Every structure is written in structure tokens, then in C-alpha cells.
């Protein structure tokens, strides 16, 4: 049963390593960006997984079961990880858009997306 709870963490580590692999070894700029996106999803999944508390109740006051509100008001979880994840997703979208627009400009100038061919003039 403990294995069950570890599955999300295994997924997190796997995703981060897949993303790092893509960033380090792929030669296409778009694939590098995809790699970063996968790392980001991994980190977001990590944050969300942290938010899970066994026996906790969703912190929406009106939709909580009435016996929970009455007997165990402390069982509502503090929604900080969810808030963090939302913020992180928004930031991620901005970074993603910026990277893709840079790629568009790079393609305009170099006519290729292969990192081996894209070199700023070495003086």
C-alpha cells in the first residue's frame, strides 16, 4: 500500500529526468523547449502531490460534509500547494510563450532549428 503513495513521486522523478535528457541531448530547439515543459510539469505534479493529506477535506467551506465541519474542523487542508501550482503554471505559460517566440525569430535569422548550426559568431 505504501508503494501506491510513492507512485506520484516516482512519476515526478521520471518526468524531471526525461525533461533533462531532452534538454541536454536533443538538438532541435523545439524539443529542448518541450523538455523544459516536461520538467515543469514534473515539478508541478510534485507540488500537487504534496498537497494531498490523508483524511483531509477539500477547503471549500460550503461543499464540505456537515459532520466534518462540526466534528473535525481541522481536517480541511490548507490549499497552499494548489495556489503555488497555479502560480507556477501561469509563470510556465509565460516562459513557454517567450521561448517559442524567440525560436520563431531564431528560425527567421538562421533558417534552421538545429543547435549545431546555430552559433553566435565566436568573435
Amino acid at each position, binding site marked *: 500500500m505504501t508503494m501506491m503513495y510513492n507512485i506520484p513521486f516516482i512519476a515526478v522523478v521520471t518526468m524531471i529526468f526525461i525533461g533533462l535528457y531532452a534538454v541536454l541531448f536533443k538538438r532541435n530547439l523545439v524539443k529542448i523547449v518541450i523538455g523544459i515543459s516536461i520538467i515543469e510539469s514534473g515539478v508541478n505534479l510534485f507540488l500537487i502531490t504534496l498537497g494531498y493529506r490523508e483524511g483531509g477535506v477539500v477547503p471549500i467551506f460550503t461543499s464540505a460534509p456537515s459532520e466534518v465541519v462540526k466534528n473535525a474542523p481541522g481536517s480541511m487542508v490548507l490549499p497552499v500547494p494548489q495556489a503555488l501550482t497555479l502560480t507556477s503554471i501561469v509563470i510556465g505559460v509565460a516562459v513557454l510563450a517567450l521561448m517559442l517566440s524567440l525560436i520563431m525569430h531564431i528560425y527567421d535569422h538562421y533558417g534552421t532549428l538545429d543547435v549545431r548550426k546555430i552559433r*553566435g559568431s565566436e568573435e
Partner: protein
Amino acid sequence: MNWFELITLHSPPLIVAVPLLTAFLTPLVSKINDTIRNLFVLIMLGITGLLILILGYDVLTNGIRVYVFGGGAPLPSGMNIPVRIMFEIDGMTIFMVIITIILAIICILYSWSFMKKEDGQDKFYTLILLLVTSTFGMELTGDLFNFFVFLEISCITSCALIAFYVHKKESLDAAFKYIVISSIGALFILFAIGLLYAQYNALNMATIANAIQFTFFDKIVLVLLIAGLAMKSGLAPMHMWLLDAYSRSPASVTFILIGATLAGLYGGLRVIFTIYGNQLLNTGFTFYPGLIIGIIVTALGVLSIFIGVFMALKRSDFKKMIAYAAVAEIGYMFLAIGSYLIGLALSAPDNPQMLIAGTYALKGGLFHILNDALDIGLLFLVAGAVYYATKQTSLNSLGGLARNMKYTTIFFLIGLLAVSGMPPMNGFASKLLIYQSTYQISPILSIIAIICSIMLLAVFVKVFQSIFLGPEIPSLKDVKEVPKSMLAAMALVAGIIIFIGLFPNIIIDNLVTPAAEALQNTTGYISTILGGV
């Protein structure tokens, strides 16, 4: 409560809010007129500077300030854990914020003429102000996630500014490299913050520092945070982005990027000294983590100095040489900080020698943050002026500029002497502190530091010789001196450099010592924050 107390009370959020609002008002104001827009930005930054002075005076006289967003003491439910975002301001914060505002004001002044012919100036000013905002945020905040958000804002705006010359493929390349490296670094920092949250249920730095156990996960977090922030501050071997970013962006952007880079260094200091302060800052031979971290940081600092100096020697591009020198200067700061950690770990109650030497190293390192920003900044401004006048940055195609650009030549000479630590410039004051104190820790460190400093002098004398002296080059016959606003900006930096060089005690006593004491006083920081919530 009169208005002055009210402003003092609310100055921390205003320092972030004023540049932020100005950033989004700038495109509107620039519909009227370019001059009005520039004046508007300068005045708003001046107001921010005033707020910083008020806050600085308050903090340096009354001690650490805490500003809790959304009201004071416990939540309505009686919950006492600090769940709210808060700003925490101590001597170190004030020191960094003052550096940032100096850089920001001079950058705007310089850009007045420098960017005049460029398109998209309204967006340029918006991005500069957002970068300034994020730098302030990183320095003021006491909340780890808040720190991450400002770090990401800093990454995004820096990237957009590095790519400001969209028509040049080199700057696009540099910007892409920067955003890839910095977003991966930021994601790992977020991962580390998640690990801390998982263990201690808190994001507030003081709360975490109070609760930290130095478990296996905490060690991973320490490594991730230091690696991510050292990357952001351009420490070797993670300096590659910095070279391209510094040398391919407009000079005024580079000038403000230095501030953002130093905010990364500040984050690293906060991690070592505040969050892990109780674990790392212990005296006595028996405690190893502090010693190990100290040795690693020192080694990386020395590596940065070596790489920066030796690579600068064989380059022939003006801006790239300064960028390498910037890497070397970052190395000096890390060398000093590492020396402090080593000195602290090696000292014992009956042998305070090492601790005294370490404290001097820390002061020298912090003082060098200010001096590096000004020295390297001045050199970049001069490089920008040369580029503005001639459209060249390669040493091979420049020469004899001293005839037509008298003032720029003088400013370059000042920057050259300052960066290589010659008296009577400011670089001498801080580097002397570093030499003296590292000699106590290990003579080899100080020998390396002195030799590399002399080599930096050699590098820039070569630059001086080939750009400003020598025979006149026919194609550069009609070069004119740069416009007044650029000269004024450079003169301002040069003036501050000479002032600090002549009276280093004023700065050390009033700014650097409070900063060093604030960093060393982890317990005081934690108790002030936790008591004030």
C-alpha cells in the same frame, strides 16, 4: 500617526509597487512625448530612491523590519503559523536595495541618449522597470515562494531585454541560452522549495530556518538552492550564459542586468546565512557541513577568478572581455564568502583569530558587491559609448579614440583602475580587505587573488592601449564624443567610485558593517520575525 510615519510604515511594499505601476504607465506616457516619458521614469525612480532612503534610515536605526501583507497578528481562526506573505528588511536587504536603485537611476539616465535611435523604447522602459521591480522583490521578500515568483519575473524580463536587438542573431542566441538555463535553474529552485514545504509546512524563511533539522532532504535542498542561485549569479562553471548575455545586449541593459545578477547572489547569501544559518554557522572544528560548504564555495570562487581572467586575456572583443572580468569579480565575492565560512568553522573559543579574519573577509566580500556593480558597470557603459560612437566592439578595428573622445577615455581609465583594485579607487578598498583576510585563512588564496587582480590590470591596459591610444584609424576620423546624458551617467558612476575609494570608511561603517552583522545574526532574524507575527 503623521504622514511621515505612515510612509515609513508602508515603504517596503511601496518600493516594489512604485516601479511596478510606473512600468505599466510608461507606454501610456510615451504616447505624449519621449522626453516627458524619460523624465517621468526618472522622477518615479527618484521617488523610489527616497522611499529606500527613508526605509534604510529606519532599519539601520531601529533594527529589522517586518511587513506583513493583509494585516497583522494571528489569522481570524487563531492560526499562528505565518502563512501570509511578508517582507523582511534588515541591513543586508538595505545594502542590496541601495545598489539596485543606484544602478537603475544611472541606467535610465544613460539610456536617454543611448536608446534614442532605437524602436520600441516604451517597451524597453517597461521591461527595465519590471526588471528593477523584480530585483527589489527578490531582495525584500521573506517568503520563499514569493522569491521564486520574483526570480521568474527577473528571468523573463532579462531574457526579453537581452534579445532587445531582435535584428541581430547573436543577441537572440544569447537570449535563448539565457532563458533555457535560467528557467531550468528556477524550476529546480521551485522543486527545492517544494521539498522544504513538504517537511516544514511553511514557506516563510524565518519559520523554515527555525524548524530546520538538516535531514538528508535538507542537504539536497541546500545543494539545489545554492546551485540554482549560483547559476543566476554567474559563478563558474555556470557562467556561459552570462558572457553572451552581457556582451550581446545593449550597454544600459547590461548595466541593470548586473543588479539582477547580484540579486541572485543575495538569494544565495540568504540561503546560507539565514535559512541554514543555525546549521552552517557554527564555530569549532567538529562541525563539518559549514566547512565543506565553505571549501566548495571558495573553490568555485577561485575557479571563476581563474576562468574570468585567463579567458579575458585571449579575447579580442571589448564587451566580451568585460564580461569575463565580471565573472572574475563574482569569483572574488564568492571567495570572500567561502573564506568567512571556513574561518568560522576553523575558529574555536580560545582561538578567535580565524573568526576575526573571516568577518573581515565577509565585509570585504559584501563591500565588493557594491564595488563590482559600479566598476564593471562603468566599463560596460564606456563600451556602450564606444559602440555608440563607432558601431564597433572588436579591438582590432578600433584605435586612437582618445583624440576625439576625451571624457570617455578618462572614464575608462577610472574604471580600469577600479576594476583591477588600484588605489585610490573603490576596488582597492574592498580587494585589500579580501587579500588581508584570506591571507589569514590560507596565503595561497590571497596570492591567487592578488595575481589575478594584476592580470586584470594587464587585460584592460591592453584594451586601453588598443582602443584609445595608438595611431588614428582613417575610418574613425569623424568620431564624435557621446551625448551629454551618457557622459553624465558615466561621470556619476566615476564620481561614486572615486568617492568610495577616498572615503571607504563611510560606506563600510554605515552600510557594509550593518549588512555583515545582519547576515551573521541568524537567531536575531528568526526571533524578530517569529515574534512579530
